[in-house]
C-alpha cells in the first residue's frame, strides 16, 4: 500500500543545512526499512508554470495553480502495510522537516 506525504509549508525561506541533513538521514532510514519509494522537495511556488491543453491549444500561465498561504513544498511516497505504520512515519517526517504533512493513500485498483 502506497501513501503520499505532502509537505505543507507556509513560509518562503528554505530550511537550513542542518535540517536538510536530518531529512537526508530520515530518508536513508526509510530506504533501509524498505518504506521509501521516492522523496523530493519542490522549488518555490513562484517557479511553477500551469499548462492547460484541454481545448486544443496549450495555454501557459505563470505561477502555481492556486494562490494560497499554504503550498506544497515537497513530498514523500512511501510503502506501508497500513495507516498506523504510515502515520508513525509521517510523525517523524513532520518533525524532521518542520512542517505539517498530509497523509493520503494512493487509489487502489
Amino acid at each position, binding site marked *: *500500500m502506497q*501513501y503520499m506525504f505532502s509537505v505543507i509549508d507556509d513560509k518562503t525561506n528554505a530550511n537550513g543545512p542542518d535540517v536538510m541533513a536530518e531529512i537526508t538521514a530520515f530518508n536513508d532510514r526509510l530506504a533501509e526499512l524498505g518504506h521509501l519509494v521516492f522523496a523530493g522537495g519542490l522549488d518555490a511556488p513562484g517557479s511553477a508554470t500551469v499548462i492547460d491543453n484541454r481545448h486544443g491549444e496549450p495555454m501557459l500561465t505563470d505561477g502555481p495553480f492556486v494562490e494560497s498561504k499554504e503550498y506544497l513544498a515537497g513530498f514523500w511516497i512511501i510503502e506501508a*502495510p*497500513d*495507516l*498506523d505504520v504510515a*502515520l508513525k512515519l509521517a510523525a517523524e517526517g513532520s518533525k524532521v522537516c518542520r512542517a505539517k504533512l498530509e*497523509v*493520503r*493513500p494512493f*487509489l*487502489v485498483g
Partner: protein
Amino acid sequence: MTDIDDAITAAHRDEWARVVAALARRFGDLDIAEESAAEAFAVAVTRWPQDGVPPNPGAWLTTTANRKAIDRIRRESKRDDKHKEAQLLSDDDPPEPLGVIDDERLRLIFTCCHPALSMETRVALTLRMVGGLTVPEIARAFLAQESAVGQRITRAKAKIKAARIPYRVPSAEDLPTRVAGVLGVLFLVFNEGYLATGSDTDPVRQDLTNEAIRLTRLIRGLLPEDGEVAGLLALMLITDARRTARISASGELVSLDEQDRGSWDTGLIAEGHQLVRERLATGMPPGRYQILAAIGAVHTSARDVRDTDWTQIVALYNQLARLDPSPIVILNRAIAVAELDGPEVALAAVDAIGDKLAGYHAYHATRADLLRRLGRSKESRDAYDQAIELAGNTAETAYLTRRRDQLSV
C-alpha cells in the same frame, strides 16, 4: 411484547457487535459486515416466530450473516476479484472460541475510534457499528440531520477501507493513548444521554446512558487492569444512580442539594464505590475519570447534603486541575470552593475565566447562583438570562427560569 420479540431485542443488544466484528474480521470490510448483520437480524424477525428461537442465537446470526455476506460478494463479484471470492467460499467457518470473539469486539471499537477519524465521526461510527443504533437514532441523539449522519458513517467506512485503517487492537505502546480516545467517545455518549439537548427531546436519554455504560463494561471486561476504564465506569454508575432523583415530576432539573437521596439507586452506587476503592487500593496515580469518580463517590457517601465532605471534594478538584487545568475544571472546582470558602472567593475564581467560557451555559448558571447568594440580585438575574438562553436541556431551562423568577427584583 411476545417472548420472540424479547429474544430478538436481547439478541440485538447482546450479539450485534459480535456479529459485525466477526464479519469485519473475515471480510475486512465494515460495509459488508454491517449490511450483512442487518440482513441477518431481518431474517431472524421473520424466521424465529415460525421456527422458534435457535439454541445459540449468536451463532445462528453469525452463520446467517456470513451467508448473506457471501451472497452479497457474489452479486458484486462481476467487478471484484474472482480469486478473492473463491478463497472466501472455501473458508469453512470454524466456530470461534469465545475469548477470540470478545477480542474481535474490542478491535471493532478501536477501529471505530481511530484517531485519524474526527471525534464526531468516531461517536457516530461506534454507535452504529458497535452499539447497533440506527442512523435516525444517532441523528436524534446528537440533533443532527439524518442525511449528515448517514454520510458521515459512509465516508468513515470508505476512509477506513481506502486509507487502510487497520482492524486491530493497537500495540501496547499505543494502547494508553488509543484507550483515552475510546473513553472520550463513550463519555460523550453518556453525557448526551444524561443532559440531553433539544426542546423536543426527553431531558434524560436513558437509551444513550445505558448504551455508554454497556460499552464501557465491555471495555472493562477486556482491559480489567486499566485504571481509567474502571474510573469511567465508576463515574457513569455513580452519576446514573442519581438519574431518577434528578428530574422532578414537573420535568424540572433538581439540583444535587435538593435531590431526594432516598431515591438514588443504591446498587449502582455500591458498584461505583467498589470500583473507586479498588483503584485507590492499587496506589497508582489516578487519571481524570478516576478523580471524577472519586468526587462522585464523596457526594454519594453523604446521607444529607450537609454531611458532604467539601474539603475532600476541593482537594480532589485541585488534583484534577493539576492534570487538566481547563476552564471547565476551574469552574467546577469553584462550585465546591463556594461551599468551603464562601461564594465571594468562588465568584472571583469564576470571573477570572469568564472570557473563555462566555458561550457555556453552566458558567452563567454558576455565576447566577453565586451572585444570588451574595445578594446581588440584579446581576444574578442577568446571569440567569444568559444561562437560560444558552442551555439546551429542557429540564435545566425550567430549573433556571424558576430560580431567576424567585429573585427579589
